[in-house]
């Protein structure tokens, strides 16, 4: 029997990190957390996760994209799905929300969601991405 899938949550907001962890654990996943991309890289090399959920704006505006791009360019991690979950709004100022799959591919991410997430939609997306990789809880 396979282990439960491992999900890495990267977010600089401790409360949100805990909420997502709680949600994912209730969904039947194992969760590991990192508060910034640097710590995430450390956690990745220790244990390779099956999926990554990352915030966008952390120490810098596009920290989430930067992390994701770095992973997709690394053969060891390129296949790990990445979900961006962000509170960066798309109505005003800088709009980074993708318009479609092409945008998402250009951003090197597999899903893009607004914060806070709808728990059902979020878990469904996680399941879908893991299934496409042949990993399910």
């Amino acid at each position, binding site marked *: 029997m396979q282990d439960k899938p491992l999900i890495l949550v990267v977010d*600089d*907001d*401790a*409360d*949100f990190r*805990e*909420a*997502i962890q*709680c*949600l994912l654990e*209730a969904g039947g996943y194992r969760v590991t957390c990192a*508060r*910034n991309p640097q710590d995430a890289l450390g956690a990745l090399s220790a244990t390779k996760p099956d999926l990554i959920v990352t915030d966008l*704006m*952390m*120490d810098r505006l596009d920290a989430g994209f930067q992390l994701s791009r770095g992973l997709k360019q690394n053969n060891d991690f390129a296949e790990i799905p990445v979900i961006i979950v962000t*509170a*960066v*709004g798309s*109505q*005003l*100022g*800088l709009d980074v929300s993708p318009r479609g799959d092409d945008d998402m591919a250009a951003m090197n991410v597999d899903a893009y969601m607004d*914060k*806070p*997430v709808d*728990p059902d939609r979020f878990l469904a997306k996680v399941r879908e991405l893991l299934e496409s990789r042949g990993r399910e809880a």
Partner: protein
Amino acid sequence: MNAEKTRILVVDDELGMREGCRRTLEAEGYEVDTAEDGMAGLELFRRRGGYACALVDMKMPRMGGLEFVENVHAEAPDMVLLVITAYATIDTAVEATKRGAYGYIPKPFTPDEMLLPVRNGLERRALALEAAQLRKERENRLLELAYERSQCATILNCMTDAVFVVNREREVVLRNDAAAKILPDFASLPVPAPLSCLPEVLGGLLAEAMASGATPLIVSKDIELAGRNYMVNASPVAEHGGEPLGAVVVLRDISQLKKLEAAKSMFITMVAHEVKRPLAAIESFLDLICRGMVKDNPEKEREMIERSLARARNLRDLISDLMNITAMQTGKLNIRRIPLDPVGLLQEAVDACSDKAKGKNIELTLNCDQSAGAEKLLADRNGLFSVLTNLIDNAVKYTPSGGRVQVEARRNGASLSILVRDNGIGMSPEESARVFEEFYRANNERTEGIPGTGLGLTLARGIVDLHHGQIAVESAPGKGSVFTVSLPTMGKKQS
């Protein structure tokens, strides 16, 4: 205009001649003065002046006609001088006209023989005067025009907006100094220069404006040239709805505005993000609780409720800080400077934070040097109080239990130095450098879970700036931080 009669001077030594002329001329509507010789005539001419015409006898005692003519002509060249002579020879006529006479009347003469040359002369004089007047007006107009042109050129060249004018042949026929500055390459070309020498986007706008025909079309566009942003307005130049004679384009440098716009957008993005963060945490926690996902872990459930409450409070602080920041940035922060005793204010600020310090078992002390209270500060009480409590509150927040926060004050020349020193978690040089930035919060394992808006120090620096003071930080990770505020004191006399 004809209220004044034309005045004629008759100079003759024969009384009969004088009076005869007078009667004839007065009957014609002229005003007539008479003199009995050249000398008297010249004297009268100089004293009364304003004569249009003089009839002068050639031979007179004291001063003859020729001498009179010479003198008067020199002083009033437009006066009609007619010489009356019994010796009507070519020689005398030539001599008289040489000296400035208009003509001569041979004696004896009938009234008509006299009146005819007088009328002719006056008519000629009127024409000459009119011509002179016109000439003068023309000269004035030319001067005015030259002045206007130079005025226009000066105004155009003093404008900060760049102006180009293109004629129907698509040549740039005018450009001002600002235009030359924006396009230095183009400025070195002779005027007129072909439109194709202008950057394509400008040439295109000019062509578009020119092609607009009877209804003038004003074309506006934001463009980028050599790394700067310009708002371009192009409009056709036409007289009274006629075919465009050309087009004029005005470029205004809006780089500053664009930067401001971008900064504003960025600020709004940051604000939205910072507001959504605590909301996302609260909503996520409450959602988990409502869905019963933590009901098996009452301790965790309680913790989530408490964290939600803390985040809600943090959100309220954030909104209040945002209001203050906006008030400060728009110059609407209500700053009322009054003489303040710094020691008293510091004590109040320390007292306000003492409960929080006690709760964390942090030793909070105030140590004011004797010199500190010697001079008052001219400062806004609420503003300064918020700076001090913010610094002390931060020190308590970022110092682990059992630590120490020391507030010190001492005179430093003409200013007062206030130091808030802690032996808390400290900051790296990178973190220290950014700590006054809007929304910047150091994020590491030691700062996690410590609430903050990321605006407190931005506000503090803004308020200190308004007091012409300085705020600085020295820090080292694990060793603690020292925030120093320096404020100018009032001086002994005023305090």
